[in-house]
Structures are given as structure tokens and as C-alpha cells.
């Protein structure tokens, strides 16, 4: 005797689909994702949806919907500008981690690093990533500049973006140099001594600038605090602003230069 179920219990799949639909129809969901977002409508590959991925997300601040075909060739930019930006993000993340364990005073700095390396989970790894990442950033920014030069990509209308780039290069070097002091070991102290001695030879205001940067005539605990604030707050703040202008100009100047 077959029993006809005209109202069977919903399967797990059906229930999941129903809950999914409820969430996607909710006010909260729709307040988070803009009309046209692929998280509202779902994504199937179509030219329109490809546009929507960019147009209806925060990515629109960085990228236009379409770019020149030759601009996506890795052999043109070598990804160097983008990688400089990405290492900067990695450095920010690892740097925030380090800040939890570090006090910028002559009495604590070195021991904090020592403790971080020996007794904090992943402390050594994260410190290594921050330090090697910093060297990589100097390298990628420098190579990015070289590639821009060899492509003649600084020519009109991109002259000013090149100038902003030179500012970015300077800021990158300053970020790396101020960070160099923070471990407060023999390497840090004397490398920075050599570096800042050069500064004192600037005519007219050299020794004043040196005094302000060191917080005294010689390197000491005051220097450590100053360079810490420069390193974790002021220089990152300034470089982010210049990066924003840099990226904006790349788009406004008509995207990537070329093809050659």
C-alpha cells in the first residue's frame, strides 16, 4: 500500500536554500551590499556581471571596470607597483602585531624583541616577515621606479605622478631607516649613528635638523621614542596619502602608459 506524501518534510538542501533566500532578502543584507552587487544577485559569468564585480564594490576606488589589454600583461609592469603596495599592507599587518609586544624605551626595547622571539607564539616568524618585507619593499619600489623610467612612463601627462613617486621612494627609505633603529641592538644603534652623522653636514640647518630628529645631540632614548612615532604613525600616515594620490593619478592620466 503506497502512501502518498503530498506534503513531505523539506530536505536539508531545501531548508538551507530557504534560509539562504531569507538572509539575502533581509534588510541587513541589502544594507551591506549595494544594488547590483554580486552578493545580492549571484554571479554567473557575463560581461555585465564582470563589470558589476568592480562597479558595485569598494574595488571601484582602485580599478576602473575595464583596462587596456596590454596593461594586464605581466611583462609590462612586472607587477612592481602593485607588489610595493601589497608588501606595504603586509608590513602594516605584521607591524601591528609587533606593536603589541614592544616598548620604545632604551631600557625595554631590546629585551622586548628578545622576549618576542623566544616566548611569543609566532613572534620570531612575524618579526622575520616584517624585517625581510621591509627590505623587499625598498627593492620593489626601486625596481618599479627603474621600470617606469625605462618605459618613458614619466612623460606627459604623467610628469607629476613621477614626482609623487619620488616622494614615495623617499618616504619608503625613511620608513625603513626609522624602523632600523627600533630593535635597539648594536646593529641598529651604529647603523643609525653612521646615517645621521651624514645629515649633520648639511649646510645652514643641518645640525638643527639632526638635533630635532635625534631629540638631542647624540642618539639616546629620546631618539628611540621619536623614531618609533615616526615609524608606526607619522610616516605610514603620510605615505598612505601619497599612495592615494599616486593611484588616483594613474587612472586620471589614462591608465598605464604604453604600449611601447
Amino acid at each position, binding site marked *: 500500500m503506497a502512501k502518498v506524501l503530498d506534503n513531505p518534510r523539506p530536505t536539508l538542501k531545501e531548508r538551507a536554500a530557504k534560509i539562504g533566500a531569507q538572509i539575502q532578502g533581509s534588510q541587513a543584507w541589502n544594507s551591506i551590499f549595494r544594488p547590483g552587487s554580486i552578493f545580492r544577485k549571484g554571479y554567473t559569468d557575463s560581461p555585465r556581471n564582470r563589470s558589476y*564585480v568592480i562597479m558595485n564594490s569598494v*574595488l571601484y576606488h582602485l580599478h576602473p571596470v*575595464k583596462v587596456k*589589454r596590454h596593461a594586464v600583461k605581466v611583462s609590462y609592469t612586472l607587477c612592481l607597483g602593485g607588489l610595493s603596495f601589497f608588501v606595504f599592507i603586509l608590513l602594516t599587518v605584521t607591524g601591528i602585531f609587533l606593536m603589541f609586544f614592544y616598548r620604545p624605551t632604551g631600557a625595554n626595547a631590546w629585551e622586548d624583541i628578545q622576549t618576542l622571539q623566544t616566548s611569543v607564539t609566532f613572534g620570531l616568524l612575524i618579526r622575520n616577515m616584517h624585517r625581510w618585507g621591509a627590505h623587499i619593499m625598498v627593492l620593489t619600489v626601486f625596481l618599479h621606479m627603474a621600470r617606469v623610467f625605462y618605459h618613458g612612463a614619466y612623460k606627459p601627462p604623467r610628469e607629476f605622478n613621477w614626482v609623487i613617486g619620488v616622494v614615495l621612494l623617499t618616504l619608503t627609505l625613511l620608513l625603513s631607516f626609522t624602523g632600523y633603529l627600533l630593535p635597539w641592538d648594536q646593529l641598529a644603534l651604529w647603523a643609525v649613528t653612521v646615517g645621521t652623522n651624514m645629515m649633520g653636514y*648639511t*649646510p645652514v640647518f643641518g645640525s638643527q635638523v639632526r638635533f630635532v630628529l635625534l631629540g638631542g645631540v647624540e642618539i639616546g632614548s629620546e631618539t628611540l621614542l621619536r623614531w618609533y612615532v615616526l615609524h608606526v604613525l607619522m610616516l605610514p600616515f603620510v605615505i598612505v596619502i601619497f599612495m592615494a594620490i599616486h593611484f588616483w593619478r594613474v587612472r586620471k592620466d589614462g591608465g598605464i602608459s604604453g604600449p611601447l
Partner: protein
Amino acid sequence: MTEIPEHLLKRAQAARDKAAGSSDASASEGGDRIPDALLDRTKASGAGAAVVAAAPAGGVPVGAGPGGHTQRLLTVVKSGSIQEAKAAPVDKVHTWPHLLAVEFVAALALTAFLFVFSWVVNAPLLQAADFNNTPNPSKAPWYFLGLQELLTMFHPMIAGVTLPGMGLVALILAPYLDRNASNKPEDRKFMTSMMTMFLIFWAVLTIIGSFFRGPGFNFTFPWRDGIFFEL
């Protein structure tokens, strides 16, 4: 209120006079007058609208202009003033997936490299800072070693300030000094060779400063006396 400049007032007056003068003449006379065909069409549509509106309401529709017109010609533009789009079509691709995929892979590769490298190689942490114990040699970070190398050749003011300052200014001014508009490598041989020479010069200085300088910043061979270099 701001003063309207004399010449603008004059021009407006002249235009008004001209309009008044030519409205007496036949509309078909001037080259930049509204063509008869368009005027006729406007009249026809005005009449038509009045008829259509009249049917249901039996009067002039709400919001209609003088004469019962429901449509207005906003402006008449001289033919020459219409912008012509000259932009040549550019071969473009969608940012998603073409560019984002590349960026994602590049970011992932870099993260993987940094992760593995940091897993294997430890960053240096020497003895705690000691003001009474100057290591020999004392070296600046590698990206300043070219400068430190220059210091052995010139007065500190030249090596530490004048030369790097000039380099920075030259870098900033490069786009304004290079008057050659082409970006083709074959047209830019002078600039590329200048830059290449400069880069090689700088790289050599940095390498000497990094690996060929020992105690007292005196010249050494790394294979003879070892390497005095920390990252």
C-alpha cells in the same frame, strides 16, 4: 550684485537688435536660422498635443505653456558647436577577471615567498645597544652604503649632502628636462644609457660598500677576510 562688463552688455544688445531685425524678414533667409521644416514640425506637434489633450479633458492640459504647447524646444545650438567624439576605440579587457586574477596570483606568490624565507632565515638581533662599544666596521643600512662609500672619496658635505641632493633634484626634474616625447626605446637611447650608467655606478658603489669594506671601512676581499655585512 556683480557688475556686468560693458562688452557683454553691448554684445547682448547687438544680438537682441539682430533678432528683432531678422524676425521681420522671412525665417528662411539666414543660414543659422531654424529651418522651416523644424518650425513646421514644432507647430504640428503643438497642435497635435492640444488636440490630444483636448479630447479627454476638454481644455488645456495642466502645466502647458502659452498656446497650449506641451513640449518646448530647450535650445537651438549652432552646428559647429556640437562636440565631435574623436576618441579612437581602445582594446580593453575587463578588470575582473583579467587584472584581478593576475594581482591575486602575484600577491599570493609574494606572500608565500616571504613566509618561507622568514621561516628559514632569521632576522639579525645583535647584542643590546652599547654606547661604549663601537663595532668595527660600523655600516649604514645597505641602501645607504653607496653614500657611505662616497664618503671615502669626498668631503662629507659633498658626499653626504651635495651629491645625493643633486641626484634627488635630477630625479624629480627628469620628466621636465627630458623633452623627447617618444616612449619608444629606439628613440630614447641617450636617456636609457644615462640611467643605466647611473644605476650601474650606484650598484657598484653599494656592492663595494657592502662586501669589500672591512674594519676601519678599509678595502678587503670578502673571500679573504670574510663578509662584514648585516641586513
